């Protein structure tokens, strides 16, 4: 399944400035794995040492929150993933 991942701007420094990356996978987890395969420096920005998504990350699939069990969510051709980072400032 071909899926477009929209990256948060804090992550684009690891993708040569690319805002979106096309990946293949059957679920969100596989898509993010392929993203990391293409851009290995992203690994520590997305996952902790145990492979769990970082607490500050939010995953949206086709405009809707993928929480909980984001990584297990199935995807289909043409789907879009948005990776957002929680904001704390005021």
């Amino acid at each position, binding site marked *: 399944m071909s899926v477009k991942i929209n990256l948060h*701007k804090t992550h684009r420094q690891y993708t040569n400035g690319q805002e979106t990356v096309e990946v293949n996978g059957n679920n969100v987890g596989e898509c993010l794995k392929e993203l990391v395969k293409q851009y290995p420096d992203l690994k520590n920005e997305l996952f902790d040492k145990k492979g769990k*998504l970082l*607490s500050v990350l939010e995953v949206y699939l086709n405009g*809707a*929150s993928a*929480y909980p069990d984001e990584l297990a969510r199935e995807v289909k051709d043409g789907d879009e993933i948005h990776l957002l980072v*929680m904001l704390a*400032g*005021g």
Partner: protein
Amino acid sequence: MLTDNERKRYDRQIMMKDIGEKGQEKLKNAHVFIAGAGGLGSPIAIYLSAAGVGHIRIVDHDTVELSNLNRQILHWDENIDRNKVDSAREKLSELNPSIRVEGICETIGEDNVSQLVDGYDLIVDAMDNLPTRYILNKEAIERNMPFFHGAVSGLEGRAMTVLPGKSACLRCGYKGPVPREKFPVIGVAPAIIGAIQATEVIKYIVGMGDLLTNRLLRYDGMSMRFTEFKVARNPQCDHCANL
């Protein structure tokens, strides 16, 4: 009842059919709690005061610092080292002497949040950290009070309105603690998000329009795009699942 002075002051918004004199009276009678007198708290408090929200309590423990002045527009150079709530109260009272503004210089925590928000209709989130936001979110849920969330970083921001038991709360997507960090920001970002939060508060009080519930509105000033994401209540949420 509105006074003649108030009818003149709010003439342009009373002209709006959805507000009218009845809506203006609702604003006059409203009690709004603003958590934070900084980057978000400034535009929120200014626009709610200008709109005639009759009772505003603003809470912040900080004093004004030089580095606040790029974004915290309620505070000016001459206010450096003063309590933010005193600086805020003075400006807001001068902006609109017909409303009552109360400033409390305290740190919002689990021990005092209930006492601080008691007697108020709703909570507006203008905090600078997530742990206190969760304390306010929980208190709002327990009291069945609306909670108007906003947050910023850099040229980015987000807003969401929480109606306890009816829409997703701030905690519904909780994945674990997030470290406190000094965040970069330029004043136009909280100006936009604060104005959105104030809009939501006014709509809620008057009872008009569609609220930003079950929708996270994200603003990206760099690309100048607003994007909306659907969010849903979490049946396992440790704040609102039992409602």
